[in-house]
């Protein structure tokens, strides 16, 4: 399931709902991204997340479908917020549930890595000097590439 919204989400309720009633699930891995108050040594006030309505949902659905195709998963969830967010606010939640823990971990990791380089969101950080568009990081590209160089993570 994917959701794109301005509202905050209830982490505990979302995770509970993901596994509720399915006793085939042995492991649930989740990742929450939060707004930091510092970036590159500079203090950050509020942040604004812009996105591309329509394409965002398509990309998130594609990423989720790809994870479902790669690993034996019982449930997956992607929630991404947009609009104005304050330090400490939740930005994104990705989660994967499976009979087996490795599948849950790898799929969850895959979901956030792909989301980071494929989903059309852009962060505008409010710094003392004014709004600053966040630059994409090479490390995010590298994190995505490792999933495309082999069927899983090579060393595992």
């Amino acid at each position, binding site marked *: 399931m994917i959701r794109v919204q301005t509202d905050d989400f209830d982490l505990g309720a979302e995770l509970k709902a993901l596994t509720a009633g399915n006793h085939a699930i042995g492991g649930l891995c989740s990742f929450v*991204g939060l707004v930091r108050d510092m970036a590159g040594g500079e203090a950050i006030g509020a942040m604004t*997340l*812009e*996105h*591309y309505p*329509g*394409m965002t949902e*398509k990309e998130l659905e594609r990423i989720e479908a790809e994870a479902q195709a790669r690993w034996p998963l019982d449930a997956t969830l992607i929630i*991404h917020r947009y609009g104005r967010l304050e330090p400490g606010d939740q*930005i*994104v939640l990705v989660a994967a549930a499976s009979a087996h823990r490795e599948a849950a971990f790898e799929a969850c990791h895959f979901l*956030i890595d792909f*989301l*980071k*380089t*494929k*989903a*059309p*969101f*852009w*962060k*505008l950080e409010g710094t003392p000097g004014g709004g600053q*568009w*966040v*630059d*994409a990081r090479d490390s*995010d590209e590298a994190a995505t590439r490792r999933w495309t160089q082999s069927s899983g993570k090579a060393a595992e």
Partner: protein
Amino acid sequence: MTAPVKLLYFAWLREKAGVGEEDVQPPATVATVAQLIDWLETQGGGRAEAFADRKVVRVAVNQEYVSLDHPVTAGDEVAFFPPVTGG
């Protein structure tokens, strides 16, 4: 082309171009994304500045990532944006 091409600009590309969304009628010689950008650079505003470094411009046609040599046809939705930074 008959129907217009719908353009969308996001993040700093929107700010530099000075426009978020516009319908354009490029000349018939415009057949690819690269040619569309070439033509847009002649259309004033901040468009030339927005496209100055094409390496950092990502393009989606009809909400799918494409490369600069991808065809553009009447009725398409073409979006320009910087590398994404969500998550």
